[in-house]
């Protein structure tokens, strides 16, 4: 007989719930309320809505995002089909290569395309769209590829003998089964591109702004905080509408989600040349921009120079490396602590867990720029200069990383068999002892993964850091963007050297995540 354990009524879960709620209220809810209620008046709303520039920004954000989604699918679909339908030697490596772009900080992706594209394409929509596609190929490969893996090729055979042509079999069988995944991936890619900031700032040039970059420009370029807040609210509404429509379509597709058995087949020899061409093309698409970053870091004009690297480890740029490192480490600790408490509350608390679960995704709907703006306005006090403290950036980064880390930890908590805790209890272990001996022992890999994820998010985070970090203690992404906005090969080489270092840092952090998740008890990936 299966029974809910009486041990579920522990004091730890409500305590965790209370602490998490208090932190989220203080650093997320209150700043948003202060921002909207304290800064915006009705006249601001009508002023922003009536302004033609607002709609130009909304229009640009939308059409470049739609174009980016289309470009992402065009580039990603051949390799997605290859990985999703066929087993072959090097499949895992190819999938990892496809994921590289998504793991990199967006400012580094912007720098990579500055490094690889000819000067005539710098500051163009094409550069922005290509960088967005580079960043998002992984979303299509992971989301759509995972669905294609579950498509049973024997159903196609059944369709053929019933008279369906191969095209007809795809349109009537494979497409209906993968439509939900395609819509999901499109929605996610659209949101990433719609709220893009670093890529647009680095590659878009001064005349092109998404809503996100316009919010930052208004708030800090021209001091129009109320206008920026209205734009931020408009952006949240658009994000919520897109997410709601995605969830509706996901709900309609729910019945097909039961097809979870992996059904990939060996690569037939007739398709091998095409497969090799696709794999090589994707590898070049991912690796050439990265190699260009390293290349451009040692090139000044037409000659080789290590001056940029000397500057990176010398006094000029070492402050940025140090700032990013300490902020990332603190974010890792705070992020894991907060997410561990939140996930404990979500999984174990009898009351309020579902509410906290819903609240925990709010930062995902908020842009980091809006978050940073809210923190600045709320904590702009005369009695203490919060912004002068480096750890204030880590607080913002913790809020950005916390929903993602929570998504890693919640399934890990759920995977812990309650019977082990029950067994420890009847052997005399108290609540804290059970937590340490049972829960933490099983959770520790997920915690390491969460730590790596939070560190990676912090290392690459750009929007909030742009607003919150002070000159002299700027993070690496902020410094890279500032250097790229200046002219001269020597200065840009410093940006590329710093970008190279950031690439190494991020990949190291994410390899730690991959390693921890790969061995963890909750590892359910394929």
């Amino acid at each position, binding site marked *: 007989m299966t029974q809910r354990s009486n041990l579920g009524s522990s004091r730890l879960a409500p305590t965790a719930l209370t602490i998490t709620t208090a932190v989220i209220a203080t650093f997320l809810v209150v700043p948003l309320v202060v921002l909207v209620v304290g800064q915006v008046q009705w006249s601001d709303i009508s002023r922003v809505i009536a302004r033609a520039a607002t709609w130009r920004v909304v229009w640009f954000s939308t059409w470049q995002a739609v174009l980016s989604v289309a470009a992402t699918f065009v580039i990603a679909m051949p390799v997605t089909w290859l990985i999703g339908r066929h087993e072959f030697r090097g499949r895992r490596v190819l999938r990892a290569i496809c994921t590289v772009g998504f793991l990199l900080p967006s400012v580094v992706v912007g720098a990579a395309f500055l490094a690889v594209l000819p000067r005539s394409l710098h500051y163009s929509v094409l550069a922005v769209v290509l960088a967005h596609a580079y960043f998002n190929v992984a979303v299509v490969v992971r989301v759509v590829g995972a669905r294609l893996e579950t498509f*049973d090729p*024997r159903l196609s055979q059944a*369709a*053929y003998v*019933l008279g*369906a*042509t191969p095209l007809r079999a795809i349109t009537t*069988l494979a497409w209906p*089964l993968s439509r939900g995944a395609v819509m999901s991936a499109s929605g996610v890619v659209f949101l990433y591109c719609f709220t893009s900031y670093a890529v647009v700032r680095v590659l878009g040039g001064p005349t092109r702004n998404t809503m996100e970059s316009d919010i930052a420009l208004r708030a800090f370029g021209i001091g129009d905080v109320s206008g920026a807040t209205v734009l931020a609210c408009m952006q949240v509404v658009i994000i919520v509408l897109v997410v709601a429509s995605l969830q509706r379509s996901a709900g309609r597709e729910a019945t*097909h989600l039961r097809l979870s058995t992996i059904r990939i087949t060996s690569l037939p020899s007739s398709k091998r040349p095409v497969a090799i061409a696709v794999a090589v093309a994707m590898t070049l698409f991912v690796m050439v921009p990265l190699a260009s970053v390293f290349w451009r870091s040692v090139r000044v004009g037409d000659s080789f120079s290590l001056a940029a690297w000397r500057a990176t480890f010398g006094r000029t740029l070492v402050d940025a490396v140090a700032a990013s490192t300490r902020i990332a480490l603190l974010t890792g600790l705070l992020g894991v602590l907060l997410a561990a408490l939140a996930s404990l509350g979500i999984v174990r608390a009898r009351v309020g867990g579902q509410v906290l679960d819903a609240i925990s995704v709010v930062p995902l709907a908020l842009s980091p720029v809006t978050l940073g703006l809210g923190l600045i306005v709320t904590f702009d006090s005369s009695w203490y200069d919060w912004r002068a403290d480096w750890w204030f950036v880590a607080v913002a980064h913790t809020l950005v990383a916390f929903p993602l880390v929570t998504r890693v930890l919640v399934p890990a908590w759920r995977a812990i068999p309650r019977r082990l805790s029950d067994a420890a209890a009847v052997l005399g272990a108290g609540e804290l002892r059970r937590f340490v001996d049972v829960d933490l022992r099983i959770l520790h890999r997920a915690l390491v993964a969460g730590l790596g994820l939070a560190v990676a998010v912090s290392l690459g985070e750009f929007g909030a850091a742009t607003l919150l970090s002070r000159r002299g203690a700027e993070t690496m992404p902020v410094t890279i963007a500032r250097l790229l906005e200046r002219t001269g090969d020597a200065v840009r080489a410093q940006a590329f050297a710093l970008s190279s270092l950031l690439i190494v840092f991020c990949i190291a952090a994410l390899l730690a995540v991959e390693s921890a998740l790969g061995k963890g008890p909750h590892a359910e990936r394929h």
Partner: protein
Amino acid sequence: MLSVTDLVVDLGGRRVLDGVSIEVGAGERVSLHGPSGCGKTTLLHAIAGLVGCTRGHIVVNGRDVTVLPAHRRNIGVLFQDDRLFPQFTVGENVTYALRVQGVRTSARRPLADIWLARVGLAGFAHCSVDSLSGGEAKRVALARTLAGEPNVILLDEPLSGLDDALHDSLLADLRALFIETRATVVHVTHDRAEGDRLCDRAIEFARLIQR
């Protein structure tokens, strides 16, 4: 009706069929039996066009279909694992062949009801395939195969793995339906008794191999 001559099939660099020949007359039901792994299913898949032939000829109604793709052969297959389309209702599954032939939805619906009634599943058209029992799924797969009015029906051990009662009941229904529709049937099985009850003629698979 169906003539297979000197058929050779290589799969993955291995010769699976080597010189198989078989003749089946119109309306005749032939059972091929042999042990597992002897190539029975490969022969059916080659006749249906699901695997390519290295050599030999397959002729249906006087037309050489050897190099035609599966969707242009009009040969029905009742698979061992049914292969119902999970995203379609029972009725949509039954009329899938008509759908790809371009028959309009309004014309397909009554045909689905007719075929479902003939396999003892009247009223199931709107059901999800996930809600079907094993026996019901077999009947839907049979209706789907018959609804396309194929020239030849290939049965790939469709009754294996069923309990005795269901097996006997489905076997009787299959026989009645095939006699009623005067279907030309090739049935592969490892169960000789099943083949004898369903078909007019039985062939030991090993005897089909010419060399």
